[in-house]
């Protein structure tokens, strides 16, 4: 059974036919060739496949492509504007928030969701809100610093300390 879906991804409207059982992450990676969204565990635990669906962080390995008809998606490729990194991306760069980098796209998308809800989170709030993203390098310390950098930058006090 196939379904026609129309979905806006990173500001561009796409129409495609998808099978009932096609997962959103496969549609994003294999149909739209947006391979920044990673598949880690494929069992809804690691968060590497996190993207924003209508502005909310979701695990795209646990959503059907057919379910996103008419919705808006932002992936890691959609964060930078005019060649300038998003403040969260810049935070991960400045604070060395990645080691192997596999979890990074998902970590960044969850951090964007977090800072949208809680602009100035404390460390405990950052850790609680990133529980759905696993870093197998265990580089959480610098991930927290990266989010703190972004939080400062986004609230206007550029992370210059």
């Amino acid at each position, binding site marked *: 059974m196939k379904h026609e879906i129309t979905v806006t991804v990173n500001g561009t409207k796409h129409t495609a036919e998808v099978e009932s*059982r*096609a997962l959103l992450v496969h549609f994003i990676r294999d149909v739209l060739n947006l391979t920044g969204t990673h598949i880690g565990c494929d069992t809804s*635990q690691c*968060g590497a496949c996190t993207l924003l669906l209508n502005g909310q962080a979701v695990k795209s390995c646990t959503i*059907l492509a057919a379910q996103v008809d008419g919705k808006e998606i932002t992936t890691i490729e959609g964060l930078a504007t005019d060649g300038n990194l998003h403040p969260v991306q810049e935070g991960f760069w400045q604070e060395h928030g990645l080691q192997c980098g596999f979890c990074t796209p998902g970590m960044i998308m969850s951090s964007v*969701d*977090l800072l949208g809800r809680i602009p100035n989170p404390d460390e405990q709030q950052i850790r609680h809100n990133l529980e*759905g*993203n696993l870093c197998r390098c265990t580089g959480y310390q610098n991930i927290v610093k990266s989010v703190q950098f972004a939080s400062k930058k986004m609230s206007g006090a550029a992370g210059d300390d």
Partner: protein
Amino acid sequence: MYPAEFDYHRPGSVADAIKLLQDNPEAKLLAGGHSLLPVMKLRLAQPTALIDISSLSELSGVSEDGDALVIGANTTYHDLMNSSVIKNKLPVLAEASDLVGDVQVRNKGTIGGAAAHADPASDLPAVLLALNAEFKTVGPSGEKTHKATDFFVDMFTTTLEPEEVLTEIRIPDVSSVASATYLKFAHPASGYAIVGIAAVKTGSGEVRAAVTGSVPIAVRLSAVESEISGKDLSDDNIAAAAEKATEGMDFVGDIHASDEYRAHLTKVYTKRALKKIAG
């Protein structure tokens, strides 16, 4: 991993969803999908059709009806945490929701899905039991209302019939709740409840408590309730009541925690929850 093949339907109303359930006896309803899709990917479940009710607006929203709160089955954990009505009237529901899974799960998972799935380690069933929640279901023979104590039958089993849809959850007598809490000992990796205790104290001194995680299905702690209700919530009375938390109960054991350990934790968390509502 792909699930086995199935047909995907997105009905425009609850009535259409019921028709689809009647036409597809092996179908499953899809709400948040965060319990269903993972087991389908592992091929532990292979429904022939999914009926996606996640965008039915008639199942969304939180509203007040006199002294009751009416919560649409599609209300997500995220919505519960951010609803001003919930935060003002029944903050325990928002606090318990914040302990479920992770952000991505809370953005998709729904209160109706949690109730209908009846996972023995799910958090909200204990809270809904302690709040005396009522569950409204709609099916081919019309509407029914179930008390929480009747709704949860066994592990992954409720009174919901195959052709019925859980539409709303109603919390009655909200103003009678003087204090309420939900405490859990979470599995450190999965976050699921090894044990979770919900406790409610009413203005007239009634105490209601329920347990999840350590038992086959969330259930009221009736021996604890009858020991403490109407009494002063002193440390001694609380300790005596918490000792009753294992009375007449069967506990589950697995590689994460033995039944003996879960029984012990049930007493410990019952005591902590009662102390919390004592204020």
